[in-house]
């Protein structure tokens, strides 16, 4: 075998372009992904504020918005089509360019090699390509705002036949939808290349002594996430190709016969919109775990660090991560209970869906077990980790409602699922990202974030998201429709208007609180207190090297790992934490 587990370390690049732009250093690429996600998340947030304005004050005129969006706000009122375009882009940007990139491409890239004691990813050049294809993909997606007809209106799920028909079906379904599909196809390629890089790195590049059961849980979640990405993105890619053929090749994979749209008979025959749903959700459900699993890993890591206790039930956690990941491939039908599934397959999907509750509960109780009796240090990062657990529970419980066919038939396409997925996938995953940011910022940028500002950010955000999304559950139960701009159109929705206004005001506060984060972030990058090597007194390998780490991560040291990832409070140890590379303890333990 010519390659060893530790290939020759490349010399550090010297030119600006090689160092910061087309870098093959996983740390720089991680930061690039992070900033891409940062731009995306604030764009997505701005779009949601616009939607909320429309929902809370549907008749109000906003002349200044008409100046910015002359087509969307004719007469100062947002058109329903423009609402749907904002909705589509909000969902797409959040799911793909925030929740798929920041936790995995960002933190995973930066910390996975370091946490297993490797010098870089297995394929540094491929890593760079993955980022730049993702970047291109985001450019193509954003271009959809500016083409004739604007952004597509078919939602982040691009349900056919709406997405397959072209301009006849509505604005944005011409070139806007084409760009959407191309962007997603590029994203699929970038993600699956990234995924095989992650998997190879974990299997082949662990430092001596870093056995699988000594890996931090973050590594386990990035690894599992990569497997999910490797197996689900190719299916979305194939679906995207077929959809594009329907649009530009004259095929009708997803277009049924005899369709009439706006009094035009569509010339097509025999395709099946349900086929799109199968292919999309075969990807779509694993995708929600791609978004949330890294947050689970981060939460485990943070809870252990700041409770000064080992993760409760480490092995059970590993099994649960894998079980969640694998079960995630067999539940896609729960998104299709009202699409005409046979009652039998609906039952099977329902049972499998509820089965995911078991490993999820294992994780939750293990987190609580980790906190129990700990010497808790309430840092900002810790607050976000605890917030993650809270959101995971309140968002997860409603999943048990929606997983039952009979209940879902009632709640489907109301605000109830909107509230559910924002809690568990949207905001919980964002809390994972924020917790990771407060925790790893010192390592990445060599400076500390401001704790006081951070805590203020946490409390405002935590209160804010609950104020936004808890009322949405109630609105959903009362029948408020999803993907629907006319919130006063129907009599039964009128009494919900006060809720709408309350939610929108909560959105203003929450969105403003994110500016605190931005201030803290950029202030910290340049002016923050200098960080030491191990400011949190943590045990994993990133904390034995400089902040930020040198180009080869450990300055030429060959590491030998002797300890598990979370040895806090070990009796007989000199300190209350044992780092993974500390020499073996003397006593016969």
């Amino acid at each position, binding site marked *: 075998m010519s*390659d060893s587990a530790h290939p020759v370390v490349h010399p550090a690049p010297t030119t600006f372009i090689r160092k910061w732009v087309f870098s093959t250093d996983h740390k720089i690429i991680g930061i690039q992904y992070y900033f891409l996600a940062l731009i995306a998340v604030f764009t997505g947030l701005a779009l949601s504020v616009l939607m909320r304005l429309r929902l809370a004050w549907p008749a109000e005129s906003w002349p200044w918005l008409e100046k910015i969006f002359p087509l969307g706000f004719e007469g100062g009122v947002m058109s329903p089509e423009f609402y749907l375009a904002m909705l589509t882009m909000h969902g797409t940007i959040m799911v793909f360019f925030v929740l798929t990139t920041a936790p995995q491409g960002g933190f995973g890239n930066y910390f996975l090699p370091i946490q297993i004691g490797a010098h870089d990813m297995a394929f540094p050049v491929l890593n760079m390509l993955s980022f730049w294809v993702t970047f291109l993909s985001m450019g193509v997606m954003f271009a959809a705002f500016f083409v004739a007809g604007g952004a597509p209106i078919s939602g982040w799920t691009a349900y056919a036949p709406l997405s397959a028909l072209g301009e006849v079906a509505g604005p944005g379904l011409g070139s806007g939808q084409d760009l959407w599909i191309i962007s997603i196809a590029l994203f699929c390629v970038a993600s699956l290349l990234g995924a095989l890089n992650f*998997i190879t790195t974990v299997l082949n590049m662990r430092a001596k002594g870093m056995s699988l059961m000594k890996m931090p849980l973050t590594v386990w979640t990035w690894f599992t996430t990569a497997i999910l990405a490797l197996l689900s993105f190719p299916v979305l890619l194939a679906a995207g190709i077929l959809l594009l053929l329907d649009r530009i*090749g004259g095929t009708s994979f997803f277009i049924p016969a005899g369709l009439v749209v706006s009094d035009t008979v569509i010339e097509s025959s025999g395709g099946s919109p349900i086929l799109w749903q199968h292919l999309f959700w075969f990807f779509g459900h694993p995708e929600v775990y791609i978004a949330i699993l890294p947050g689970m890993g981060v939460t485990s890591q943070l809870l252990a660090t700041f409770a000064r206790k080992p993760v409760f039930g480490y092995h059970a956690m590993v099994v649960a991560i894998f079980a969640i990941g694998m079960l995630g491939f067999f539940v896609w039908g729960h998104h299709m209970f009202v699409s005409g599934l046979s009652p039998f397959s609906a039952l099977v999907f329902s049972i499998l869906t509820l089965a995911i509750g078991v490993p999820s509960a294992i994780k939750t109780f293990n987190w609580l077990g980790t906190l129990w009796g700990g010497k808790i240090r309430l840092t900002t990062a810790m607050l976000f980790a605890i917030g993650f657990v809270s959101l995971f529970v309140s968002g997860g419980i409603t999943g048990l409602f929606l997983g039952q066919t009979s209940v879902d038939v009632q709640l489907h396409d109301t605000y109830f699922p909107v509230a559910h997925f924002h809690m568990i996938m949207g905001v919980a995953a964002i809390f994972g990202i924020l917790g990771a940011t407060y925790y790893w910022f010192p390592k990445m940028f060599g400076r500390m974030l401001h704790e006081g500002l951070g805590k203020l950010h946490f409390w405002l955000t935590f209160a804010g998201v609950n104020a936004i999304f808890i009322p949405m559950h109630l609105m959903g139960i009362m029948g408020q429709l999803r993907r629907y701009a006319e919130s006063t159109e129907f009599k039964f929705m009128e009494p919900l208007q006060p809720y709408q206004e309350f939610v929108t005001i909560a959105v203003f506060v929450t969105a403003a609180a994110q500016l605190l984060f931005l201030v803290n972030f950029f202030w910290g990058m340049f002016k923050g207190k200098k960080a030491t090597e191990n400011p949190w007194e943590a045990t994993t390998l990133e904390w034995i090297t400089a902040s930020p780490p040198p180009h080869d991560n450990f300055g030429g040291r060959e590491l030998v790992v002797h300890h598990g990832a979370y040895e806090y409070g070990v009796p007989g140890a000199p300190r209350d934490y044992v780092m993974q590379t500390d020499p073996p303890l003397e006593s016969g333990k």
Partner: protein
Amino acid sequence: MADARVENTGLQLWGGGTLPYSVSHIKLGMWLFIVSDALTFSALLFGYSYVRIATPDWPTPFHFWPTIVFATLMTAVLLSSSLTMVLAVNAAQRGDRKWTIRWILWTAFFGTAFIVLHGLEWMGLINQGMTLSGNPWGTPLFGATFFGITGMHMFHVFTGVVYLLAIAGGVARKRFHSEHVEVCGLYWHFVDLVWMFVFPLVYLLSVDMGA
């Protein structure tokens, strides 16, 4: 902790510092890519089966002559290319650079021949009026699935030929060693294997049995 003793020996198979499958990064990476790519094809074939089952009168217009004879010839060409690929890997492992390059070029030749034959076949079908959006025999999905699946496969053969030529060039300039040839071979055999699914599912199941 409890097994600190074991750690000190350092070189357990999964204990870190080793290659647990005894394969290098690139070979493992290629295997993973193949798994992923197999899922892309599976999705296409799933879509094909789905619409085919959902369509009551799916056309079966192909005849033994010329379609099946032609497709069998293409299959033979592709199988030959797999054989020459095996020989190329063998030569590379022996360190025989000259024969490595020769066998790779033969493989690329068969690959190109496959593309040419396939192109001729497509031309014939297009001349009979079969396109992505319609055909003389029934549901337009027949042509759509046919061209969609075989087109995707042909695209893979094409990239494979480019990949082969790049490897041959690298071997000639002594930049690539036998492992690179082997990994390229994995991809090539995979593309062949996909055809072994396409041939029965798309061709043989579309033969007019005279019923």
